[in-house]
Each structure stands twice: as structure tokens, then as C-alpha cells.
């Protein structure tokens, strides 16, 4: 018999989206001075959700000034244990409003509600709780106790509220104030967070949120009043930022792209490895900088693993992101889908074999069926360039040395995964893989206590853990 799941959509009634949003500066929502507006859409339906402000230069300066004033007058004078109380309060409010935030994230980003509900939002709260614990112990972390001052933070659209938490929580815990620019296509949860700051009675100006696109981001980077820039996004933009900051006194941390290898040995726990491969590249539609986009599978188990993987991909449920049973949501934007299309075409043209999961795509919105390529070599574009979509490139290896060599043969170095029941070999691999995060028999697992960040073109600086505090403390050479 067939067992079709009836639609089980999460209710939209818990969110209240305003038709228009201003900027959050100095504790209040204000209208722009010299900016414009743009529309934000639901990528699953192309429905316009709201009108967002694109901040201009005067708006950014106003936000930086507010952050500076708040830093001087209140936040830098406040003892760590008092800052901790605000962080705790924010964490609690996030938990209380978690359903609303999850629905809002799914509407604006296109990710499945199962992920925003079970992964994104719980991790957001966890990051604030974790850093609340650090706020009065900063001096014991080993990176001094001097905050930069005003931190300019620019975050991407793939995990909008989670990336906000990764940036804002440590910055505030260390005693900085913040000017945050969310990605232009996913401003709604950042604006909801602004409301949470007010609800928590956070002193005005400690967190300022200026919405807008790349231009606004550039103004934040170039603002003379900003002491530190933290950026998560593409390697291309990261390089521009580093060039712009060369010769200034500003601090910088970058979390950029990746092309992670997920390495499956012949003694791997196969069923769990298949789950890990799926979670590595199809989690969040592959819009993950640390996605396991290159599967390196030992040649002797290639057929077995690929058979199991294809079978598993055929059971993935693609569709309405608000449906609680959806596994694969919408591609974030038309531009992103065009980029995926382009790279997939290059894979076909260069001779790799494409296989896509059999599933029907909705008529409206942006979608891409889970896809894998076999017969991929290191020379193919799909083995080298970050696709940032639900596309897996499968390569093979014969020996552990070859696995290490191929895994490291990339300009990136953000993450890697090793699947084996042999712990000693996993550790041997981990010490040779040039990647910031190495997962053993799992993938895409995050915890606020565990530092995250990259090598090489994946950036520098760490987020989370004790090490993550260094990004928001000025290292003075004595």
C-alpha cells in the first residue's frame, strides 16, 4: 500500500510581518535619511513579504555614531556580569519566540521549517546562552580583556539569524557594540531580533541594524568609526574587504567559502555515512559554506555507497518549506539557481555523469532537485568551485594518503568529514587535513562551545568556543 503524508503546514499566524521596515538605530526603528527601499520575497512562492530599507551613507554614519556613543557611555563601563544578564535575557526571549522566528526564517529564506525549528533557532539561543556565560570571564580566556569598540558585522543569507547570533553574541559578551548588516534578501529575522533587543531593554545603540545590499555593506566596512569588521560570505567579497582594510587600524575576521571533502572509508558505518552525506550536502539546500560538497569514497565500496545514497535521495521530500515533513526547501533566489544551473551544466559538458533524485518541482518559486555527479575528477569545475546548492560531486580514492592529498587539493579549507570505524586512522587523517573543522562520523554539527572557521581562502578567525572570543578582543603587543 502507499503511505502518502497529508500536508502538515506550520501556521503562519504566529508571525506578524509589517508592510515596511525602517532601520534599527540607537534603540529605535527610524526611517532612512538618504537611502531607498527594496522588496523581500518568499523564495518558495515569489510572494513579496515586505518592503525593506536600503540604508545610505548618512544612515550608516548615524548607526556607527550611535554604536560609538553606546560603547563610550554605557556598554564599555558595564561590568561583565551585567552584560551577561542582557545576553541571558535575549537568549530566553529567543526561546520564547522560537516558533515565530522559525516560521519567519523559513518564509524569508526558503529553508524547511524542520531545519529552522530544530537546528537554526535552538542554536541561536544556545549561542546567546553560551556567550552570556563568558561575559564576566573574558579576562580568563587568554586574549586580554580589551574590546575593539564598534564592530561592523556583515552576514549572509543562508543562516540569517544563526549568523547574526554567531556575530552579535561574542561581540556583546566581549564588550563591543555592533552595527550589523544582514543580507538584503533575509532581513526579516534580523529586524525581529531588533525587536527582541528592545524587549530585553538592551541599552540603545548597543545593537544597530542597517539593512541593504552590497553598497551598504561597503559603507559599514569603510566607515572610519568602525574598529573591527567581521564578515561571513563569499571569498570574492572577503578579498575586497581585506583590500579595503589594508593599512587601516581595523581588525578583521573572515569566514568565507568552502569545498569540503566528505571522506568515506571502506570500513565506514554505511547507513550512518549515507545520512551524513545527505546531511553534508543537502542540509539547507546545500547553501552551507562548510557543506560536504565533494564526496571522496574509497573505490572498493563506491558502488555500495552510491546505491544506498541514490536510494536515500529518492526518499527526500522536496516542497513547501513550511510543511513539517519537507526535507528540501526552496533555492534561495533566482540568481543562486542560475549559478547552480551554470555549474551543473559545466559538469555535464566536462563529461561527469549526472543523476538527480526523481521528484516534481513546484511551479512557482526557485527549486533544484537533489543532484549528484559521478565520474568527477579533480580537474572538473564542479570539483573545484563552490556551488552553494544541492549538488554533490563524487570522487574516489584508493589509499588514505590519496584521500588526504585530494581533500587538501583545493584553495579552500573550511571543513572536512571522515567516516571510518577505525578511530586511529580518523585521528591520523584529522592531523593531515587542512580544514578548520573536521567531523568524525558526522557532518554539519554545530555547537557554540566548538570553534568554527577556516584555512586558506576560507578565511581566518574563529567563531564560537574560547577561541572565538579572540575575534572581538584587541590583541595589544606589549
Amino acid at each position, binding site marked *: *500500500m502507499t*503511505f502518502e*503524508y*497529508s*500536508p502538515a503546514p506550520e501556521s503562519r499566524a504566529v508571525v506578524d510581518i509589517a508592510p515596511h521596515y525602517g532601520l534599527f538605530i540607537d534603540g529605535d526603528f527610524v526611517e532612512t535619511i538618504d537611502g531607498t527601499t527594496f522588496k523581500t520575497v518568499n523564495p518558495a512562492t515569489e510572494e513579496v513579504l515586505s518592503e525593506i530599507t536600503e540604508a545610505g551613507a548618512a544612515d550608516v554614519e548615524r548607526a556607527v555614531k550611535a554604536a560609538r556613543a553606546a560603547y563610550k557611555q554605557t556598554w564599555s563601563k558595564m561590568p561583565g556580569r551585567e552584560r551577561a544578564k542582557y545576553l541571558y535575557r535575549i537568549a530566553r526571549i529567543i526561546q520564547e519566540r522560537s516558533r515565530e522566528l522559525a516560521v519567519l526564517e523559513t518564509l524569508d529564506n526558503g529553508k524547511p521549517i524542520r531545519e529552522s525549528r530544530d537546528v537554526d533557532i535552538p542554536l541561536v539561543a544556545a549561542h546567546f546562552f553560551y556567550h552570556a556565560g563568558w561575559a564576566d570571564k573574558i579576562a580568563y580566556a587568554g586574549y586580554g580583556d580589551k574590546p575593539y569598540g564598534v564592530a561592523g558585522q556583515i552576514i549572509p543569507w543562508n543562516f540569517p539569524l544563526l549568523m547574526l547570533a554567531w556575530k552579535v553574541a561574542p561581540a556583546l559578551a566581549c564588550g563591543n557594540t555592533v552595527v550589523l548588516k544582514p543580507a538584503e534578501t533575509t532581513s526579516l529575522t534580523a529586524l525581529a531580533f531588533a525587536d527582541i533587543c528592545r524587549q530585553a531593554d538592551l541599552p540603545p545603540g548597543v545593537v544597530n541594524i542597517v539593512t541593504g545590499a552590497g553598497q551598504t555593506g561597503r559603507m559599514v566596512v569603510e566607515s572610519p568609526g568602525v574598529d573591527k569588521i567581521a564578515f561571513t560570505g563569499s571569498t570574492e567579497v572577503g578579498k575586497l574587504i581585506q583590500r579595503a582594510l589594508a593599512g587601516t587600524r581595523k581588525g578583521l575576521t573572515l569566514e568565507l567559502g568552502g569545498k569540503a571533502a566528505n571522506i568515506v572509508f571502506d570500513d565506514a*558505518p554505511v*547507513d*550512518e555515512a549515507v545520512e551524513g552525506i545527505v546531511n553534508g550536502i543537502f542540509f539547507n539546500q546545500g547553501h552551507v559554506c562548510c557543506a560536504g560538497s565533494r564526496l571522496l569514497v574509497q573505490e572498493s565500496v563506491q558502488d555500495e555507497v552510491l546505491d544506498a545514497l541514490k536510494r536515500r535521495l529518492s526518499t527526500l521530500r522536496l516542497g513547501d518549506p513550511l510543511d*513539517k515533513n519537507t526535507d528540501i526547501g526552496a533555492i534561495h533566489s533566482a540568481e543562486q539557481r542560475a549559478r547552480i544551473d551554470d555549474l551543473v551544466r559545466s559538469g555535464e559538458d566536462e563529461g561527469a555523469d549526472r543523476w538527480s533524485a526523481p521528484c516534481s518541482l513546484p511551479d512557482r518559486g526557485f527549486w533544484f532537485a537533489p543532484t549528484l555527479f559521478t565520474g568527477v575528477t579533480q580537474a572538473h569545475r564542479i570539483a573545484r568551485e563552490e556551488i552553494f546548492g544541492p549538488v554533490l560531486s563524487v570522487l574516489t580514492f584508493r589509499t588514505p594518503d590519496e584521500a588526504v592529498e585530494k581533500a587538501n587539493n583545493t584553495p579552500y579549507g573550511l571543513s572536512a568529514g571522515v567516516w571510518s570505524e577505525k578511530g586511529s586512522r580518523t585521528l591520523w587523517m584529522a592531523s593531515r587535513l587542512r580544514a578548520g573543522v573536521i567531523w568524525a562520523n558526522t557532518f554539519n554539527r554545530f555547537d557554540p562551545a566548538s570553534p568554527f572557521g577556516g584555512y586558506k581562502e576560507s578565511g581566518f578567525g574563529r567563531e564560537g568556543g574560547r577561541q572565538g572570543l579572540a575575534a572581538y578582543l584587541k590583541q595589544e603587543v606589549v
Partner: protein
Amino acid sequence: MTAALAADVAVSNAALRRYLHGLPGVDQVGAEGRAAMLSTRSIKAASKQQAIDLAISMVDLTTLEGMDTPGKVRALCAKALRPDPTDPTTPHVAAVCVYGDMAAIARDAVGDALHVAAVATAFPSGRASLAVKLADTRDAVANGADEIDMVIDRGAFLAGRYLDVYDEIVAIKEACGTAHLKVIFETGELRTYDNVRRASYLAMLAGADFIKTSTGKVSPAATLPVTLILLEAVRDWHRQTGQRIGVKPAGGIRTSKDAIRYLVMVNEVCGEAWLTPDLFRFGASSLLNDLLLQRQRMRTGHYSGPDYVTID
């Protein structure tokens, strides 16, 4: 295919051990994560209705107590045949499950309408000689049982005497004649998922028609992750041999919500082919009444109460 495989690997304890220990390992965290993820599926409306009826039709309605009497067994059988007297559209359960000495009474009560399953082989501990276990089995079959739920010798399994466990299953299978054989692992005593996977292959190799988690007498009994390991085993066995083996989680499944989670797992791990009482059963007693309450609620739009379903 199975026979050829058995001829290859069941020749000595060493060969059998090599085969079982050569199976891919189970990563505990990953397996539990997968089970937890599947249990977040939200089954509503028509799909819930369908799942409840399917679950009812898969119940092995069970009484396995020292205090069982002919009267109790007859009451159980009446309930099994007509679970909800107020609604004749309610499906009947798959089987009644009793001790061997009650099999004749059960068979008399259900006729050919239901399967009669009897536990045998010195259930639940399995601590008796092979001769006793074989006699126990033959007795149950003679009393009218057409399904035998045997327990494996966990002591032998944990001591690494796999061939002894294998030979015993083969012997019981032969004693069953045409009766179907369910092999109970008592996963709560095997402890590790690796052991559960090895026991699954051992039983399938020896000719089990069904593999079953627990007796219900040991805690923990059936869990979602353990059942996941069993389902993966029968799925892969089918791909390897073309033969479909059934799965029966037993013990600890009490609510409709639990039952639906199991059905989702069957659906997403093994596929639709396994969504039949021929290949999936619930070993349960109190589960049936919760399924009936939910069924009544879906039919009438409101909850009734425990007095609106019959006790058995």
C-alpha cells in the same frame, strides 16, 4: 541464494564470526539521530486515519502472563476479531500471541480468521536444552499455532558461540513445519547496535520469517533506533537475496503516536512493500485500545474515554 550463503558462512563458528563481524558497523549517535529525525514526521488527517487502520491490522494482540486462563485468552480473541464493537469497519488485528499451552484455546476461538502466534523455546529466558525447546515448539504447533515466536540463546550469542545460536534456529525452524518463525533477539540484553545487526543477519541466514526485538519482559524493549537496525537489515537482505523478511518490534509501544512513528520508519527505510501485516507487526497489548480511541476520535470528532473501548 540464502542457502548458498548459509552453506558458505555457516560451516564453522569461525567462518560465521568472520561473516557477522564483517558487516558494516553501526554508529550509535548517527543511528539514534536518524531515528529521532524520522520521529519528527507529522502525520495528519487522511494519512493519520490510514496509519491507524494499518497499525490495528498489524497488531499481534498479546497476553503472556503466568495468570493467563482460558477465559482470559477467549476474551483476548474476541477483542482481536472485533476490536471495536461499535464500529464494524474497524479492521481486525493480525494475530493473537499466547503461551503454547493456550494456543489450542486461541485457535478454537479465532478459527481461521486470525493467525495464532505462540511463544516457545523456554520463553522468555531461553534457558533450557535444545530438546526441551524443540518439544515446546512442536507442542505449540500441535496445539494450533501457525506462528512461533522463539527466543535466541543470548548467553551463547554474547559468548561468541554464533554457530550454536544458528543451529538452534535452524532446528526450531524445522520443528515449526509450515508455521512461520519469528526470532526474538531480546535487544535489551544484546545492548549494542552492532550486536543487533549481527543477530539480525544470523537469524535471517538461519531461516527466520520474522525478526523481533524483544520479549516484552526485559527493559528496554523495542525502541525506534533498534527497530531501525532491524529494518535496515531486512531491506539489505532483500537486495542481496530477493527474500523479504518481516520485522516485529514488541514491548513498550503503547500509543498511536508511537505506532505511527514506527510506520513512518518502515515507509522511509524499507518502502511500501513492507507496509503489510505479512511483513510488519506490533507486539503489544495496550496499544490497541489507544489506536481505537484515536480512531473513534477521528470518526466522531471528539475524544471519548477509556470506558468507550473494551478491556480484554
